């Protein structure tokens, strides 16, 4: 049962990633090119119909996938780097460093993520850079929250004390004692955060503060075409369903991984 879910998830995720990578080959039209009547229904206007400007929906989704996956991945990598480094630093140094980092993270986390993003993006203006950086900072706090206790547990282990008594350097601690033991949790958390980042960027774009037109990620596509739903067209839901498929498949893989390595389920 769990294995079936895992295979399905892996397959689904592979298909989505392949679709994003091969978008220029797979897409029947350019995403910016009006080729049909506005709001042409599926069949008449391509496989998934056309949008308000007559652009091919399928092509726009394939290109939108690149934005969504690309941004989510980039954000997660940056956030993991920052969050994990801070967490290990805090666990290791303890004292003032720990307190300061902890308080700062608490302050950022005490505001809902999306609200924080809205405020910062309103002030800084929306660009791909500000978007990715803002999201990365917010995601990094979540990485920190999960990794800090894990790192703390490991640092408190007697085998780390043995290394301390032996006089090992920082590199040995990090790469020989701590990281190998934290790796499963880190990998699982990374998966969870990717799924979350996909929902996050989609939400921001849906609200209009994400990827800016004429480019569009999946959330942006939903925003652009939302009106079509009121007139009974289902095709605007296609990008939304696509988002759900990404998160479902990533969660499926993470779920399998967590069970395989029996990681405590306090993540996320």
């Amino acid at each position, binding site marked *: 049962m769990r294995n079936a879910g895992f295979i399905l998830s892996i397959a689904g995720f592979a298909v989505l990633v392949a679709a994003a990578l091969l978008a220029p080959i797979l897409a029947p039209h350019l995403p910016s090119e009006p080729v049909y009547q506005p709001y042409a229904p599926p069949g008449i206007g391509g496989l998934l119909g056309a949008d308000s400007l007559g652009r091919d929906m399928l092509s726009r989704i394939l290109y939108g996938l690149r934005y969504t996956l690309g941004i989510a991945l980039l954000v997660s990598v940056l956030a993991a780097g920052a969050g994990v480094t801070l967490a290990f630093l805090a666990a290791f140094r303890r004292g003032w460093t720990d307190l300061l980092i902890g308080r700062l993270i608490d302050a950022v986390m005490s505001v809902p993520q999306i609200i924080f993003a809205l405020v910062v993006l309103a002030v800084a203006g929306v660009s791909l850079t500000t978007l990715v950086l803002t999201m990365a900072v917010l995601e990094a706090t979540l990485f920190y929250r999960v990794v800090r206790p894990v790192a703390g547990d490991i640092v408190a282990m007697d085998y780390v004390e*043995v290394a301390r008594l*032996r006089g090992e350097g920082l590199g040995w601690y990090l790469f*020989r*004692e701590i990281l*190998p033991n934290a790796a499963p949790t880190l990998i699982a958390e990374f998966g969870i955060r990717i799924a979350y980042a996909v929902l996050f960027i989609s939400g921001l774009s849906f609200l209009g503060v994400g990827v800016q037109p004429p480019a569009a990620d999946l959330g942006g596509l939903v925003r652009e075409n939302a009106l079509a739903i009121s007139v009974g067209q289902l095709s605007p839901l296609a990008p939304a369903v696509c988002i759900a498929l990404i998160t479902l498949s990533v969660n499926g893989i993470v779920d399998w991984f967590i069970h395989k390595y029996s990681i405590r389920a306090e993540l996320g």
Partner: protein
Amino acid sequence: MATFVLQIENLGIQAKRSTILEGISFDVTPGEIFGIIGESGAGKSTLAMATVGLLRAGCRRVAGSVRLAGKSLLDLSQADLERTRRRKVSYVAQSAAACFNPFYRLGEQVTELAALELGKSRAERQRLAADLFRELQLPDPERFGDRYPHQVSGGQLQRAMIAMALLNEPELIIFDEPTTALDVTTQLEVLRLIRKVVKGRGCGSIYISHDLAVVSQLADRVMVLRHGKVVEMGPTRDLIENPQAGYTRDLVANQTTTSSVPDPAASRPIVSVENLAAGYGRVSAIRDISLDLSSGHITCLVGESGSGKTTLARTIAGLVDLHAGVLRFKGSELPGRVERRDSETRRRLQYIHQLPDLALNPRQTIREVVGRPLAKFRGLRGAAAEHRLRELLRDVELPETFLDRVPGSLSGGQKQRVCIARALAAEPDVLICDEVTSALDPLVEESVIKLLLRLMKARPLTMLFITHNLALTRRFAHEVVVMQQGRIVEAGPASSVFSAPREAYTKKLLDSTPLMERGWLEARL
């Protein structure tokens, strides 16, 4: 039928793949204390649970029956089973702190069944609880029940649980390692009370323990359990004085070896501590500590939990903040923190932790674990290191094939041997052993101690051995240091501390450590 409160016949219990219990048969008569002894993994807990008709998730009965007060427990309907448990049997578990509901006051919990079964009013229940608390010598029995579990000490909680077990006037009480988590002096108090209340009531009881001495003092008959099977069963005195099975003989022999060490030749101190105070943060956990470790001797540091013995050991190792005093190693002063000691000093002072599970990185093979100090301290790599690794493994009596295994696949005793090998790899002058055998089963403990003593003979080692078990040290200590509440109470050559202890506390510790000899507990009632 009525002559037995409990009859277990040919009981077999299996988990998914493994057999947990097989062919267990015994019975308990009214007024009898039936002892069950066994090491970890023997199936004691599963048997205890089965006695009240409980099988853990994933376990199933494959044979036999459990008859309590004439009822076949494992065949009863849920409602009948619950009624039988409420009326006929009680259970006293090891971890009283976890077994009391943190949400309710002790009085309410202890008398819960009185309300359910007998419809007692609140006032009646309070009186009932007060009587039981008084019988168990709890402080302020009228008001003790108003406290929450987290407000009383471990020993008191254990007594409250015994009170709860007595409430329904059961025909059978099961004591599942009720004193294992307690200090020796507290243990003695609880053992006295158990003996008094059980004998006074005439109910049958089962006493489960890993400690043969404790069981021998309480039980009328004893069953030895190992790997889920009965090794031997019989009246306590017969079993102890004339054990039949090899395993039982080993257990008994382990308790009775009382060779005392001759007074050692005088030698120079290798580590000396003067007027030391130390602790975490600003509060000193230990103070006024002066102590010498004589070169080539075994110094045993003894005390109950919270006495500061581990703090002292860790201070010498350089893991605790030094607040006052001086620490010397071979005459020169040692910095308090290990980070400020040079590599050579770190090599010469090796520390072995209590729990090998935590002291071994689960992701490193034994080769990496033991190989690292070889490379770090002695610069050994490649073939030379490999050769030395094999020697070290042989020294701690482990097969060379273990080199490529990870700690997870080893038993507790084997893991501790790996830790010893890691310490020896540094070729230390001083070995600090912090409760290194406390987590091990008695026979494994014995073999690890023998190993340590053999290693001591083979090389010029000085050892500081920390333990809560004073009796254990009788066999090998050259010097004994007794600690209480962060201070040294008594220190001196082992022979004089054991034969003529000066301090009342030392006497009490010695007196509280259970022995197997007949009448030991009676003499202390």
